[in-house]
């Protein structure tokens, strides 16, 4: 890739999936950059909601944590943690959520809990936090993850958040507002999910990436869209905003 990093491509690709006026449950790191990039470009009315209970945040600096004080100053509202999960997420008030993790399978189930056996883990990871409820209650769920054999796997070691059951009707009957991830953005391309089978489907390859590279970096034979395209590369203006305003130290994009 020329003139930009794969992390910058991921942030830009995720930002373009956000629509103006959406209410977004923002995560720290690349999701935060994607949301603030979208807000400065095509979605000035994006409503940024942070898990710590901050609504309509307008952060003046890059927050390291989702409860950073810069998120509170100038926000529209602050609520308790119970309210953010019950009144906002569970009650269907959130349009978009972000997820990441250590492992994902072809239906968008995600593991952010353990590698190995739960009782005797090889590696203990942070766990769910808000992930499970984001997965089931946000209407649109964007996943940002780097692709590798060990992270795009046939079988998860633990299901931290559910993906597609293949039966959205059943999911709605359970009172879920969402039905698993809607898009996955990786360092190699972007994916959607097949509406009927719930299977992850390759939609675009990033510039310079081959289908062979994608195959080498996932644990199953990927379903490929008949309209497979190329991701539009970051524009100079998108790169300028990331490098000069949003992540000048390159914490999440170098």
């Amino acid at each position, binding site marked *: 890739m020329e003139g930009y990093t794969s992390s910058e491509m991921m942030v830009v690709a995720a930002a373009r999936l956000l629509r103006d006026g959406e209410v977004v449950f923002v995560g*720290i*790191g690349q999701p935060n950059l994607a949301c603030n990039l979208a807000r400065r470009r095509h979605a000035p009315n994006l409503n940024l909601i942070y*898990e*710590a*209970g*901050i609504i309509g945040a307008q952060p003046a600096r890059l*927050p*390291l*944590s*989702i*409860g*950073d*004080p810069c998120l*509170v*100053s*100038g926000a529209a509202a*602050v*609520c*308790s*943690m*119970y309210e953010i*999960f*019950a009144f906002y*997420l*569970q009650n269907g008030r959130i349009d978009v959520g972000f997820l990441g993790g250590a492992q994902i399978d072809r239906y968008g189930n995600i593991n952010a*809990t353990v590698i190995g056996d*739960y*009782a*005797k*883990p090889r*590696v*203990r*990871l*942070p*766990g*769910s*936090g*808000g*992930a*499970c*409820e984001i*997965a*089931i*209650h946000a209407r649109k769920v964007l996943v940002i993850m780097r692709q590798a054999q060990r992270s795009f796997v046939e079988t998860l070691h*633990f*299901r*931290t*958040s*559910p993906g597609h*059951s293949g039966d959205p009707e059943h999911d709605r*009957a*359970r*009172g*879920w507002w969402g039905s698993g991830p809607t898009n996955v953005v990786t360092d190699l391309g972007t994916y959607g999910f097949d509406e009927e089978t719930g299977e992850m489907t390759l939609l675009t390859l990033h510039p310079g990436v081959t289908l062979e590279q994608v195959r080498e970096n996932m644990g199953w034979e990927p379903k490929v869209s008949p309209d497979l395209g190329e991701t539009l590369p970051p524009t100079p203006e998108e790169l300028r905003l990331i490098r000069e305003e949003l992540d000048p130290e390159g914490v999440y994009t170098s």
Partner: protein
Amino acid sequence: MSSYASNKLMTLREAIARFVHDGDTVYCAGFTHLIPFAAGHEIIRQRRRDLVLARATPDLIYDQMVAAGCARKLIFSWGGNPGVGMLRAVRTAVESGRLEIEEYSHFAMITRLTAGAAGLPFLPMRPTGNDLPRVNPQYRTVRCPYTGVDLTTVPALNPDVAIIHAQRADAQGNTQIWGVIGEQREAAFAAKRVIVTVEEIVPSEVIRSDPNRTLIPDFIISAVVHEPYAAHPSYTQGYYDRDNPFYLAWDQLTAEPGGLERYLEEWVYGVPDRRTYWEKLGPEVHARLAVQPAYSQPVNYGRFD
């Protein structure tokens, strides 16, 4: 009714000695904001043992308390160093089987506290669809008597003691918090005993000029401790910033063999109290954490005398 005692002001040493006992379930509240580190350090200094430590995010405070040998069990819902990585003491203790864990999602954890605060045995949530119910038998299912749909339930959490840090309180313990309000109120109402540490003790007239800002009224509070900077390296909105460089440094410090033990020796056992700790941090850190003021506009409550 002892919580009605007119003046609950005491030192942190006294409050921990009186209200935190070996074997207690302890909830140190605060979602990123107002994490009561000074109280955690005092618990370590007083060498409490076999505690059940409950917190949505164990954060560095429980990493330190686990490393110091205070805990036998951890109840939590996200066990990382926010924006940085892992909590190594917690991770090592879990991977080696030395620390028992009981794990939830954030929503389930907070629902437990809310049930505890409301005097209910449990509260329902929409079914979760994750694997936690498979490994944590505290997750159960109930059928809604009105709609017939299945709901996931979690039991009330009623800690023996909740520890809250706040911007200000009066000497009676009427406690005001602004900024991220996390789960402080739920933790206080769910707990049998409540210790509050505050940046400032203010006259009751200050509290009563803005009653909407009072999250926890005095009769819920057991002890009031005037302890400025008690949240560092967490923060107090409007008083001092989150010490992000410290959170980043913790990752490296705990990666070195013996690093955590050296930290506890120097910064916990090696200082008698928070005042000494804060002075030891030095002027550069103080300057880095200073925040410019941004006041809210006053509101009019009206006079009726």
